[in-house]
């Protein structure tokens, strides 16, 4: 049988070819790194698209070196693709595909994912989905221009790039679905002996809930994607109302469809997707905070219950993205209530992380800096979202820069900082070498300051009423005049953010081969199982020398009464003395 041979081959260190080892690997760690590097590339690419747009916004019409002045069509393409790339090809693959793949099996003490070949297939679906998306820039009239939300009727009558976008999404969704099935099966089935659900590290919990969200929220978007494909290719009019007139005159379609239907199906995915973006980030931060405060997480169980509640609620808040569609006050009222309720578990988790800091002797390592940066930044992101969850305040703010500022606070200084934290934290595990601390600190301070320089002015501009998606950044409107100068602040900050990524990129590649070697496998003195894996770097296929058995909760740092600074989850308790045993019996 093929599977056995594959595994045996790589495990025994037989000479396997380059392609088999790095491209068609079934080892979850290699696949995780594949995801990570591909996703980092896409993140950089998506960011560069935005830099070009910000050039245009700060100085409309001024030519960009090598590219010339941005046309409105290019601006729209870049905007739509920036959103798509960052969400579906950057953050999710990095948070779930890379960290989830690499860390989850290690943390639960498994030798691999439950379906290694399916795991490989997930990566390849993701990769080719990404290629289709990138290729769409080169088809006649360029890539999709209807925004990352692809609202019809515009998206239905857009150029060929939109069809490519839909096919790309079908591949990306397939990748996510296969991945979600794999994660859930792995977490449910392959937990090692003693690893009960409530001994799982919080990161594994976040991946668990995230996988459920992906599994159940993505298919309706896939359904919507099929309907939009049918509209574009078969001539149906699911999203086209009767009597639609465009600049070219009345549209020759049968009509009778509803643009609102797309919005419902789209946001049914896209709201849970917000939590797909944020939950793994919370998981990473929780790991790092516990490790660097040298304390157990405050309220671990409370956090887990909040997480589950959050995951459940995220399926019934979607229409708060649609208050201005005129769907009616009764429906709006329902979604306002659920939206207010869902903010509670988010606040609980964030508060628990803050309380964990209380009284800890904090190690300000580079990953910890990023994790600490995440907490207030995500806080701002969350709090600025409250006015958007209530229809009366959402209606004037919707489709202004305020919305852009809000969700970027959640995903950029929020999630992306957490993802960087994860890279700095697990890099020694992945390579056996550490990233340079000085460069890491330059990267951190540069990133967090310039990110605020980009996103805070957006909130101000939005409150002043500047619409999003304006090609000239609001130049044409007199009311935006008092806040127009912020365009330059944001664009300069974006350029600074770009420059401050170079310390990271240099650090990342230099440290792979030339970084300081770790002195011991458990570089951070951590308790979770990934640090108990085979102490060879990189960890070979199979993960553990002997299958670990778990005896403890995930974060046993500075346990009262213990002479050890920390107790690994797989550390067997000392055999009880006779006196202790008797005491137990009496109790």
């Amino acid at each position, binding site marked *: 049988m093929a599977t056995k041979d594959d595994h045996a081959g790589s*495990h025994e260190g037989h000479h396997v070819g380059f392609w088999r080892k790095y491209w068609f690997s079934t080892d979850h760690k290699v696949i995780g790194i594949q995801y990570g590097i591909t996703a980092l590339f896409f993140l950089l690419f998506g960011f560069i698209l935005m830099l070009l747009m910000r050039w245009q916004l700060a100085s409309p019409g001024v030519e960009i070196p090598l590219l010339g002045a941005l046309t409105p069509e290019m601006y729209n393409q870049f905007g739509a693709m920036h959103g798509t790339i960052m969400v579906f090809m950057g953050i999710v693959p990095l948070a779930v595909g890379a960290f989830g793949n690499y860390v989850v099996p290690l943390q639960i003490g498994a030798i691999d994912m439950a379906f290694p070949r399916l795991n490989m297939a997930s990566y390849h679906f993701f990769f080719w989905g990404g290629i289709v998306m990138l290729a769409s820039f080169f088809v006649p009239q360029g890539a999709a221009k209807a925004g990352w939300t692809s609202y019809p009727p515009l998206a239905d009558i857009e150029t060929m790039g939109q069809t490519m976008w839909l096919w790309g999404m079908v591949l990306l969704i397939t990748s996510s679905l296969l991945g979600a099935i794999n994660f859930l099966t792995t977490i449910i089935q392959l937990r090692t002996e003693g690893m009960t659900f409530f001994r799982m590290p919080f990161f594994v919990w976040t991946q668990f809930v995230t996988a459920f969200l992906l599994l159940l929220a993505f298919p309706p*978007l896939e359904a919507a994607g099929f309907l939009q494909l*049918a509209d574009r290719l078969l001539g149906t009019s699911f999203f086209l109302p009767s009597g639609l007139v465009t600049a070219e005159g009345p549209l020759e379609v*049968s009509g009778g469809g509803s643009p609102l239907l797309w919005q*419902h199906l789209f946001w049914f995915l896209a709201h849970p997707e917000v939590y797909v973006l944020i939950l793994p980030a919370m998981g990473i931060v929780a790991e790092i905070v516990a490790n660097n405060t040298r304390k157990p997480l405050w309220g671990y169980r409370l956090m887990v219950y909040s997480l589950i509640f959050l995951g459940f609620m995220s399926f019934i808040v979607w229409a708060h993205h649609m208050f201005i569609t005129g769907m009616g006050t009764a429906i709006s009222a329902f979604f306002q209530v659920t939206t207010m309720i869902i903010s509670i578990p988010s606040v609980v988790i964030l508060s628990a992380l803050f309380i964990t800091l209380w009284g800890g002797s904090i190690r300000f390592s580079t990953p910890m800096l990023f994790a600490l940066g995440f907490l207030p930044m995500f806080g701002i992101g969350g709090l600025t979202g409250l006015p958007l969850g209530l229809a009366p305040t959402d209606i004037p703010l919707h489709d202004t820069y305020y919305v852009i500022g809000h969700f970027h606070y959640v995903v950029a200084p929020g999630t992306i900082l957490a993802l960087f934290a994860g890279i700095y934290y697990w890099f020694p595990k992945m390579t056996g070498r550490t990233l340079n601390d000085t460069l890491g600190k330059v990267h951190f301070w540069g990133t967090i300051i310039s990110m605020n320089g980009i996103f805070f002015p957006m909130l101000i501009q939005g409150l002043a009423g500047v619409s999003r998606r304006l090609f000239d950044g609001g130049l044409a409107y007199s009311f935006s005049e008092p806040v127009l100068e912020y365009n330059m602040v944001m664009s300069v900050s974006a350029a600074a953010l770009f420059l401050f990524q170079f310390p990271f990129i240099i650090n990342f590649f230099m440290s792979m081969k030339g970084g300081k070697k770790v002195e011991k496998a458990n570089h951070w003195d951590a308790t979770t199982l990934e640090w108990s894996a085979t102490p060879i770097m990189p960890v070979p296929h199979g993960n553990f020398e002997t299958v670990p058995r778990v005896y403890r909760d995930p974060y046993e740092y500075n346990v009262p009464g213990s002479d050890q600074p920390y107790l690994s989850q797989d550390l067997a308790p000392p055999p009880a003395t006779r006196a202790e045993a008797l005491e137990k019996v009496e109790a």
Partner: protein
Amino acid sequence: MELLIPYEVTPRRDTGVNNAKLGIWLFLASEVMLFGGLFAAYIFLRMGADAWPGMETFDTHEMATRADQVLSVPLATLNTVILIASSVTMVLSWASLKMDNFKGFRLHMGLTILLALGFLVVKAFEYGSKFSHHVGPDTNIFLGIYFVLTGLHALHVTGGIIVNAYFWGPGTRMWLSGNERDKAHFTNRIEIAGLYWHFVDLVWIFLFPMIYLV
């Protein structure tokens, strides 16, 4: 040392299932959401429509008042019977393996595949009669959703045929190896394929009344 994933064949004690069975149930959950999304779209569009099905009948050219005036209920009923029969043969093929009766497996799996092909042939006649009247998915919303829902279902049937044909043909070498673990593994695979097949059957049982009758 071989790297063998635990619970590939035998169930894990505390969860009571093996990996593949849990995996297929999760996959089916996502499929429920996929078809659920489309059913929701169907309801949404139908509620917003002025008339349903909103087209003329093919013989009398009057406005149809019910879907069965423009769709062929007899053909769809025949297809329902075919699919249910194929689910029965699918179970029998698995049961044959459980009883170590490989010939029975071959027979029943072969019948399942033939019935599924029969379903597609009937479907092709149904589609053909629409096209011969010069109506298609672009005619109106009703036919649009009819073609998309039944078309996606037909794709699922095709996928099932491919999987089952693999297990009927080249996939059997796993059983023929004679190794007990591989035989158990193969039997599991047939059970998993069966779960998928019953799901495809079930989707049709929802589709049929919803599109053709209601």
